[in-house]
């Protein structure tokens, strides 16, 4: 009687405090039947990696509007890997310039979702990425 649910950590690393987008996504994932662990704003990469480990999530969703994504994302991916969580799907949403998308993906970010993304696309992407 396995009762497997997709577990997603939604976190806002860095210093901007605008969490409307993160909350909209968190709610959409909940409505899609996923268990969303919401950690709130101003999280350090260490806090996010630690929460991902304790909660044993399948997906880490990061919301970044501050422009610091090229510093924050690689650090979080690296911390996840160092604790043996290579298989965790890392997604980034927020204000990400087009030029940064390819480098982010090279660094191990699976999906990048800019403004105007439909939440349905995010749900679909997660369902396909998590086996």
């Amino acid at each position: 009687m396995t009762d497997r649910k997709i577990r997603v950590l939604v976190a806002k690393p860095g210093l901007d405090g605008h969490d409307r987008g993160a909350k909209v996504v968190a709610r959409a994932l909940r409505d899609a039947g996923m268990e969303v662990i919401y950690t709130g704003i101003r999280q350090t990469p260490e806090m996010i990696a630690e929460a991902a480990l304790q909660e044993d999530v399948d997906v880490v969703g990061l919301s970044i509007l501050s422009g610091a994504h090229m510093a924050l994302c690689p650090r979080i991916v690296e911390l996840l890997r160092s604790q043996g969580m290579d298989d965790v799907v890392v997604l980034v949403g927020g204000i990400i310039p087009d030029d940064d998308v390819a480098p982010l993906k090279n660094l191990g970010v699976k999906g990048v979702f800019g403004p105007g993304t439909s939440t349905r696309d995010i749900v679909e992407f997660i369902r396909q990425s998590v086996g």
Partner: protein
Amino acid sequence: MSLVTELLAGNRRALARIISQVEDDGPEAHALLAELHPHTGRSHVIGVTGAPGTGKSTLVNALAKTYRSQGQTVGIIAVDPTSPFSGGALLGDRVRMRDLAGDPGVFIRSMATRGSLGGLARATADVILVLDAAGFDRILVETVGVGQAEVEIASAAHTTIVVEAPGLGDEVQAIKAGVLEIADLFAVNKADREGADRAVLALQMMQGLAPAPAGHHGTGRQAGHAAPGAQADGAWLPPITKTIAVRGEGVAALHDWVEQHAAYLRETGQLARREATRAATALNHILRERLIAALFAGLTNGELDRAISAIARRELDPYTAADHLLQAEKPGFPGIVRRP
């Protein structure tokens, strides 16, 4: 190395993965729990329950900090509701527990109720055992925001804290049955708000109405007369502590009461009784689940549907139908009604 060996060696990733197995009732869950069981029984389990918005998460955060300042390790289980419509959940208790981030002596796990209605998830009691085996000195279990009747925490915890906040109800609410009856301790949180004293008074009046402890006829407690805590006759009068959890005020006093209650349980032999209750509850759940599963497995295709439509057509009443289903010869379901 097996997952259990890694958990016992302090590997937090192994701990998290075992919790997932247990929570999902995965293929290895029962074997893992069986292997962990001999290592359990050392943690003191503290339940924190109360209505939504009373400040349970903030209080758990503050209590955990107090325990950490004394060098004790803390496991935390925070339960939030699963949506009955989507099956999804938003688990937001970590937002209030950010002070604990980065502390290797703390482990926080959020759980969704996944359809359970008693204030906890089906697997919460098992996850408590996993954290216990991992060696945490104290385990804090935060229930969903409860109404009046979600009392499952009392059979899962050693010490149950019921959190109240000013302005939630009057004296009549306080004498209703249910959640208030399971309190070993009361915390009136947000005590800087108007109405805190009235909330304390309502609880004190409720306690004054409580019947005298058995064997002490005529010496019933009177409101405001008995000191809270352990009584001379061996009973326990739940103390009422005012707290302002966001500022940490009153939390040391609440912590001291938790420890006094733990000592009381040990000294009076109640701890053994509560352990027996926990064991009985766990066994009861497992037996029910397995018997139901075995019964359904033993029914031939359509047997259940036929009984259901017969009841709906008023040809059969549900009790008689249940008797029929249980009495039929079921190869996979031996002997529960075929007693000598």
